[in-house]
């Protein structure tokens, strides 16, 4: 009886601690940030850009819960020809708008090249807090570069928020600000078998949607509070079967397109691209004879494609894909080791030695690390086991067809405290020696680091159900990168109903 009482007291104390910590967070007012119109240095300065650029920055920074953006009505005339980058001007205008910080910027354009420079001032002290800058070769890169600066500003405010002492100093809870943000979130059970997941602004600019594919459907979800709300769904065209999904804004309209790899009857590829037209999903391209994947190359992420032949699941070189005259067309083939297939590889300088490595997951092979000449630098474990089984037609009278369990996704991400690392899924099986019959018992996402001595695990998530796919994205306005994992606890069968979950784990900063 006494023990039970002590247990209840402990639980009550823990709940109280959490509650107090939460209240402390709620009580702490986030700082106010004033974003000033941009200063323009260009051969033909276009005045609308002054406000448009600051609007973009304000909107993107405004996704953070660690800062309140006060764009206000600061008129361009208030600057009265003065540079917004001057500390005195920032302090004056910031004080007038009751802002704690002021962000001001300048766009310099020479020919096609441009530079964006921004400065963050502390209004009270009038001191410069941080500088940000980004350059580009073409005007089409201005918006993405502004996004990068916004990301840096969000991170800056997030760091300040986590470093600041709680407003209610009397509350004894340790670092309560971090608790809600770092909580692992698991969705309600979804009655589907997820094959792929991607996250991006599909429906609304600046807002992350969760895109899932099952064998037959494409579904878009949005996280509302603790719920995952189905926004829309779309059946794979022409009786096809979805293989995987990515989202990316390749056409540069500010909204991400959805790129779905799919196979069709007769084992052809019939991949397709969808976009949100304002009220529903609309196909941009269908029956594409490509496996599609958004992959990390040395110069950044790129949409890539690889074909399939009469009797081979993957055939021909991997090529960059791009939009031209409304069609998705293949371009150059990036240099890659010959055995690398499309779905699971990254190209990056993983150990910061200035040399690029190619890391690849291939069916039936351990994780491989190559140099750019195709030499094997190292091996990892057999990560990326997947339940997606592809079988090509059997061309010969008696031979086995080309068949493979597709390797799972591989991502290069910044691992807090460990530099650039890799994320891969590792699924466990109860019987792992059958060619086709698989029985998955659970999975993790594993963080890996490549160093001189080889590949090593940095951390792994807690044990989850079978990991179908995962994505890293700023799912919430906090700006903190989130590991968004699609797990499957029940596979679809003749008599069994499927069940899947979406798990969100903060990666930390």
């Amino acid at each position, binding site marked *: 009886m006494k023990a039970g009482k002590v247990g209840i007291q402990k639980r009550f104390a823990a709940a109280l601690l959490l509650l107090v910590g939460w209240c402390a967070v709620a009580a702490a007012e986030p700082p106010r940030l004033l974003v000033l119109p941009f200063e323009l240095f260009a051969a033909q300065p276009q005045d609308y850009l002054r406000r448009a650029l600051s609007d973009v920055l304000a909107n993107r920074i405004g996704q953070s819960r660690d800062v309140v953006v006060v764009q206000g009505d600061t008129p361009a005339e208030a600057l009265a020809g003065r540079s917004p980058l001057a500390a005195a001007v920032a302090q004056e205008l910031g004080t007038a708008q009751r802002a704690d910080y002021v962000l001001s910027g300048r766009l310099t354009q020479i020919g096609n090249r441009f530079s964006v420079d921004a400065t963050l001032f502390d209004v009270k002290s009038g001191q410069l807090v941080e500088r940000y800058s980004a350059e580009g070769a073409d005007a089409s890169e201005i918006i993405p570069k502004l996004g990068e600066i916004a990301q840096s500003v969000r991170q800056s405010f997030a760091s300040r928020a986590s470093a600041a002492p709680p407003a209610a100093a009397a509350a004894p809870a340790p670092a309560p600000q971090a608790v809600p943000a770092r909580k692992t979130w698991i969705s309600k059970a979804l009655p589907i078998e997820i094959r792929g997941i991607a996250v991006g602004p599909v429906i609304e600019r600046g807002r992350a949607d969760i895109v899932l594919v099952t064998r037959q459907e494409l579904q878009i979800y949005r996280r509302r509070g603790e719920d995952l709300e189905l926004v829309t769904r779309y059946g794979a065209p022409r009786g096809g079967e979805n293989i995987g999904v990515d989202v990316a804004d390749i056409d540069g309209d500010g909204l991400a397109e959805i790129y779905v790899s799919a196979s069709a009857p007769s084992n052809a590829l019939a991949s397709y691209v969808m976009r949100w037209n304002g009220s529903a999903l609309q196909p941009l391209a269908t029956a594409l004879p490509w496996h599609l994947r958004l992959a990390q190359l040395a110069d950044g992420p790129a949409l890539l494609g690889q074909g399939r032949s009469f009797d081979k699941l993957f055939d021909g070189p991997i090529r960059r894909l791009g939009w031209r005259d409304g069609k998705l067309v293949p371009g150059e083939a990036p240099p890659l080791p010959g055995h690398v297939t499309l779905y699971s590889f990254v190209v990056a300088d993983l150990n910061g030695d200035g040399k690029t490595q190619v890391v690849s997951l291939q069916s039936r092979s351990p994780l491989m690390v190559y140099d750019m000449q195709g030499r094997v630098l190292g091996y990892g*474990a057999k990560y990326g086991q997947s339940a997606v089984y592809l079988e090509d037609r059997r061309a010969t009278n008696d031979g086995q067809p080309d068949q493979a369990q597709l390797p799972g996704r591989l991502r290069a991400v910044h691992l807090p405290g460990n530099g650039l690392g890799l994320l891969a899924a590792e699924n466990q099986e109860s019987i792992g020696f059958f060619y086709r019959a698989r029985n998955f018992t659970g999975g993790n996402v594993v*963080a890996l680091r490549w160093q001189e001595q080889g590949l090593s695990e940095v951390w792994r998530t807690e044990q989850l159900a079978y990991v179908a796919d995962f994505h890293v994205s700023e799912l919430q306005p906090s700006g903190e990168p989130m590991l968004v994992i699609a797990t499957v606890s029940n596979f679809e069968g003749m008599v069994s109903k499927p069940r899947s979950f979406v798990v969100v784990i903060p990666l930390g900063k």
Partner: protein
Amino acid sequence: MRRTAIALAVGALFIAPAAQAQSNVASTFDAKLGGYVQMNTTWDSDEDDNDTLSALRKIAPPPRKAQNGTLPGSAQDGQKTLRWASTRTRLFLDVHGSELWGAKTRAYVEMDFDGLRLNEDSGAASASAANTPRLRRAYMRWDWTNTWVLIGQQTLIFLDAVSPYGTTYIEGVGTQQGAITGGARNRAPAFIAAHNFHFGGSNLEVIGSVARNATNNQPLTDLNDSGARAERPAYETMVKWTMPLFGRQALAAVSTYWGEETINNNPALAPDTATITGTAAALRTQTLRNVGTGLQGALPLGPLTPIGSFEVRGSAFRATNMATWNLGSNSTTSTTPGLAAPVHAHGGWAEVNWQITPKHGVAAGGGVSKDDRNDVLAIGGTTLRVQDNQGYWLMWTWTDGPFGFLTSVSNVNTAWITPTTNAETRNSSQSVHFVFRYSF
């Protein structure tokens, strides 16, 4: 203190990723056991004394009362049977190893249970299946980006670029010796090498093989590695062209086979035989060649449609002294050195298939295989000789994950001739197949 501990514990629950560990990880081999369990149930209008069930009857038996009154027929004619077999079950071990010399390496061993059919008492060939495991294929393979090399026992590459629809998904359409769709199931120890040339979206694969001359034309049939009595290997080539068409792939392939064998009048007098029991003067030998040429293709019929996709496939061959590709019993007109002449044969098949959904498909096809009539007449004697075989089939397949099902109806029309009289005898045979397969 206690409060701090509780707070830390509660906080830790929310902090993920939880486990922080450094561990070295490395492995290079992957071994998988695979195969399938299969049962064939076949209704035949005429008894088939060949125990291997395929989805198309190979040859119709001669009629019970032979036409033209030349010769009596067979007891099999009109003897309806319902036969069952699970001997098509297969098991394989597939090992993928580390990269070696820049190539992915692999070892593969496959067996079935459609055994040697040896008589339990004498060891001689018997029509009753022994159902012992039988080595089908065993090879090592290296795969570079565009090149591959295989060493070991594998299916002959000749006429093996395109298979009928049923074979593609579940079960072959008479791929045994003498069958209409060719005999590419012959396997032989071989060295095979191939290289792929990419031209835009098209691919040209050039394959070459040096293998045991495996035309089955030799008298000692109980040798496990049966083949021609040949001193030289067989040389095979194939050039395979695939290109995108209607969002799918079209294929065209040309293949050749060349081998040489020596027949003699008395095996005991062979020069390398330790004990010579005859006189050297009696030894006579004759060298015969085995030559084949094959054309194969697959053509998508239009783009994918909401009701599925259509495709036509087919192959054609000409063969000389190749028992597996003519009608089986008569690769040469005689076994006597000096008198033997090769039998020429030709044939082909075509099939239209409709893949309705990823799980369901329908195919209809027909084919013909003929030996040159004059060659058959040159054999002489009064034994009925198969000369012309034609067939057609309709099949439906259903696959769902590891499970596969095929049902088909087929008909075979066979013509025999009696060489001494040139009289022709015809008969037909029908069969209905149900094939159940579970792959693992």
